[in-house]
């Protein structure tokens, strides 16, 4: 579904990603782990078109995403739940969700009500808060809203950037449970996490990023058992649930 080859990307003169190659197949949860500043957000930014790629290609369902502008990519079925949630603070929960449905083709806008109902079923708290301004939600609720907003356009690939950051352990568990449920419903998820243990526990495969390079990759169980990974990323988990 997603196939990245020799991707290089960065900000101005700063080169962050160096020849990153990876892939995601339909129905998988793929985790990307790595230390602060290793380029995880930059990688998701490059896939979603927010960060310009300087070379390499990002094939998504036989289309090169590096050739599309960022606002065109969600309609192709590739949606990002950004780092820090980025909800529309001054708008209501329901308006946020409806905006998430914007990538849908015009003739599918009739499905918006059904999609709303589906998100409310997945995140019951959002139904209770639907007339509340998004900026007044708790951190966990905002994370759920950001996820619900991304799911509104029924994307074939959902990318999530550190969904568990700053949340209490119980909420983190809920979030990971929802991600696991998304996969059961046939979604494909690319998950960036600091919380490597929890991420690898639900993932099928994983990539370890270090200073913009993929240094280790493989099935999630192998990574969990890998000595280097254990020492660097699983040793002391602050956010363990």
């Amino acid at each position, binding site marked *: 579904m997603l196939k990245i080859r020799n991707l290089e990307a960065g900000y101005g003169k700063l080169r962050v990603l160096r020849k990153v190659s990876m892939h995601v197949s339909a129905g998988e949860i793929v985790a990307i782990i790595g230390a602060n500043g290793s380029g995880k957000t930059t990688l998701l930014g490059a896939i979603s078109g927010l960060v310009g790629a300087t070379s390499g290609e990002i094939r998504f369902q036989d289309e090169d995403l590096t050739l599309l502008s*960022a606002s065109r990519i969600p309609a192709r079925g590739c*949606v990002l739940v*950004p780092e820090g949630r980025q909800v529309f603070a001054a708008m209501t929960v329901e308006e946020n969700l409806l905006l998430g449905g914007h990538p849908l083709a015009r003739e599918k806008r009739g499905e918006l009500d059904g999609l709303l109902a589906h998100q409310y079923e997945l995140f019951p708290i959002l139904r209770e808060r639907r007339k509340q301004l998004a900026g007044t939600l708790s951190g966990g609720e905002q994370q759920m809203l950001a996820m619900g907003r991304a799911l509104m356009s029924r994307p074939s690939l959902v990318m999530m950037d550190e969904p568990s950051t700053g949340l209490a352990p119980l909420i983190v568990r809920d979030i990971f449970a929802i991600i696991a449920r998304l996969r059961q419903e046939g979604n494909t998820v690319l998950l960036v996490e600091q919380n490597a243990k929890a991420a690898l526990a639900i993932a099928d495969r994983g990539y370890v990023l270090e200073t913009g390079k993929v240094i280790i990759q493989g099935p999630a169980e192998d990574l969990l058992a890998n000595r280097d990974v254990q020492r660097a990323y699983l040793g002391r988990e602050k956010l363990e649930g």
Partner: protein
Amino acid sequence: MTSELFLQYLVAGITYGSIYTVVAIGFNIIYNTTGIINFSQGEFVMLGGMVAITLHNFMALPLAILLAVLITMAVGAAIEMLFIRRLRSPSVLRMIIVTIGVSILIREVALHLWGSGVRSLPYFIGNEITTIKLGPVFVSPQVLWVVGTCLVMVVLLLLFFQATSLGREMRACAANRVAAVLCGIETRNMVTLSFVLSAGIGALAGAVVSPITYSQYDNGTGLAIKGFTVAILGGLGNSLGAVAGGLLLGVVEAFSVSVVPLAFQDAVAIAVLLLILFVRPHGLFGSGATAAMKEF
């Protein structure tokens, strides 16, 4: 002051206040989607009046006004697509300087096209001495046109922003540009649309008020200052605040005539502006929290 005179001042204040409100809302719409103050906002008002006056030589008044509004909207779109959009690295300051340049450009072109003479549209109903008795006061029907048109525009705009999906997308673009892009919203088109909308409401205001205030190649500048004052007064970006601020400034100005000479009327607006900037920089109705979320 007799109560009759009091009411006359009040009516005058509301009339001018509603024009200032519309100009201020024009500022707000563009500010909300881009974070910039569009200093050519006053020129939209001038163009609405001047173009309608010229077209009225060839066609009926309603058609002339409609065309003038459409032409000004096209000018608004052109400004955005030719200048704002092409900026290499569009910082807020650079965009503001561009709009100042554009306003000078439009004024110069207007001076060449129309000269410096003062013109006006005819009164829509009757003439300058026609009055309607409204309770204890006599008002010109044109006053009702001005206030009514502004009121309708404000209500329609509020409906547009709150109840349509396009309005929702524009607000999203204002609230969080990156998140809007991630929702697949073409933010550049929203910026163009904000210029088109602002130009349209400015031009319509300029046309309906032309019989009362007259039109001249440079009368946009004064209106822009008033509208800007009102936008600050109401809290930048806050359209309901602009309504209250507009009426307030209009009324204060109207009553100031009884205290200070007419020639100082503009000074009153500037004094109000400075006073607010010193005392309540976020406007009477704006809050520091929302202002801090904006770039400016």
